[in-house]
């Protein structure tokens, strides 16, 4: 290996380590755009589920009672939910609605569908301040 080659190799190593470190604390507008697009894709899935009869068993869809996810108030969770008898998460209430008006089976807490529904509902309330426990 010539000196020059060693220099190149060292330089390469430096460049590699620089790139590796940069991702930790620096990101570009493009990154942000891409990440937002990732969220949007999931929120969009949520919107599709919001209008999908497949979530329940009787053809009723979330949007029938909640156009634009109105009156879901995701910013108030966790909160005491009177007739669930406990401090509930938004996902608890989504599952309650799936089981009752929609007469479907509740989603597992790890089900990506539940994430998508919450992403959509929360997106519709963007800009509204958090008010946990609010009644």
């Amino acid at each position, binding site marked *: 290996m010539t000196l020059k080659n060693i220099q190149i190799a060292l330089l390469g190593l430096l460049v590699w380590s620089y790139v590796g470190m940069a991702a930790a604390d620096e990101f570009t507008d493009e990154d942000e755009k891409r990440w937002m697009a990732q969220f949007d894709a999931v929120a969009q899935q949520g919107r599709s589920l919001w*209008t999908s009869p497949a979530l329940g*068993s*009787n*053809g*009723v869809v979330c*949007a*029938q*009672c*909640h*156009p*634009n*996810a*109105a*009156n879901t*108030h995701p910013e*108030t969770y966790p909160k005491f*939910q*009177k*007739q669930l008898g406990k401090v509930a998460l938004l996902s608890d209430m989504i599952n*309650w*609605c799936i089981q*009752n*008006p929609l007469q479907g089976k509740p989603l597992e807490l790890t089900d990506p569908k539940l994430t998508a529904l919450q992403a959509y509902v929360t997106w*519709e*309330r*963007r*800009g*509204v301040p958090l008010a946990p426990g*609010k*009644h």
Partner: protein
Amino acid sequence: MSKMNRRDFMKNTGALAVAGSLPVSLIELAFADAKENFTLAYISDSHIQHIKGSEFVRNWDRGLIRAVAETNLLTPKPDFIVYGGDLAQLGTKAELDHGAEILSSLKGKVHHVMGEHDYYLDLGAYWEKLFGPQHYSFDHKGVHFVVLNSILTHDEWTFHRWPTPEQRMAEMAGLDNPNGSPFMVGEKQRAWLKDDLAKVDRKTPVVVFSHSPLQKIYKGWNFWTEDADEVQALLKPFEKVTVIYGHVHQIQYNQIGNISFNSVMATAWPWPYPTAYKQAEVYLPKLTVPINRADPFHERDATGWQFINLASGNADLHYTLYDNQRRVVAYNTQTRQPEDTQYQAPERRIPPQNHY
């Protein structure tokens, strides 16, 4: 004060009968001559929804069944009943037949109004077979009643945009669907209305039944009629005009010039006020005292029917709200606008609850 009860109502209207609490919208037209007083009941927006075979969504079925049973208890009997549209969810024969069957228990003449959920599958063909023409007028005890189909839209959207009638129906069935299209009465029907009204004395009280509000409230959810201004212009010459509409599944009222506007409740499910969706600009009429958020755990909460008293040719609506305080929105002859008889003043309102 809490619920206005039947006996208060009777006292106030001088009616003879004892039974007074009604589960349907009852409209009473009261005139100086008490013999001419009459009431109507108003049921609307049942959204009968077919699942498969003989199965229908029970929740919506029960709402209509209950309203019909309660209407039949009304004393005095209403002179007639108005069904305000959206009997079906997706306009199918199965849904319209099932809804008509439930309504067939009603004791009394029913006048039907077309809703978009009844219309956009076959453009009203089967509905017409069951219930008659899509727009018409009639006179009853000195009042001129007009029924309009206010949920029409552009020909281009109706006839050319969708590959199937089913898809057209589905697109119009979603309230917040950006693929939908604004409602309108349309030029042809407005010409008919002009002719119809030409024969009516300007002192005659006119009551218009439409499905969508003949005023512009919130376009995003079609709480809106695109040619509302043109229709209002046709109604302008009359001394007393009342427009009663369904579609919005909530209490709304307003006064524009000589025209009083009142909405009726749905029997199926309540809708939040557009104000509940804070990202949108709000057009709820200033006069309207909103009802509280509905409790999803009580399936009939904030659904119901109304009982309407058209005293002196103006409408007083007695809302029978399940699981809620009853509300009476009456025309105030001093302020010349509809007002909530109990809660209009801000300090008298029920503090809003934000549960659920």
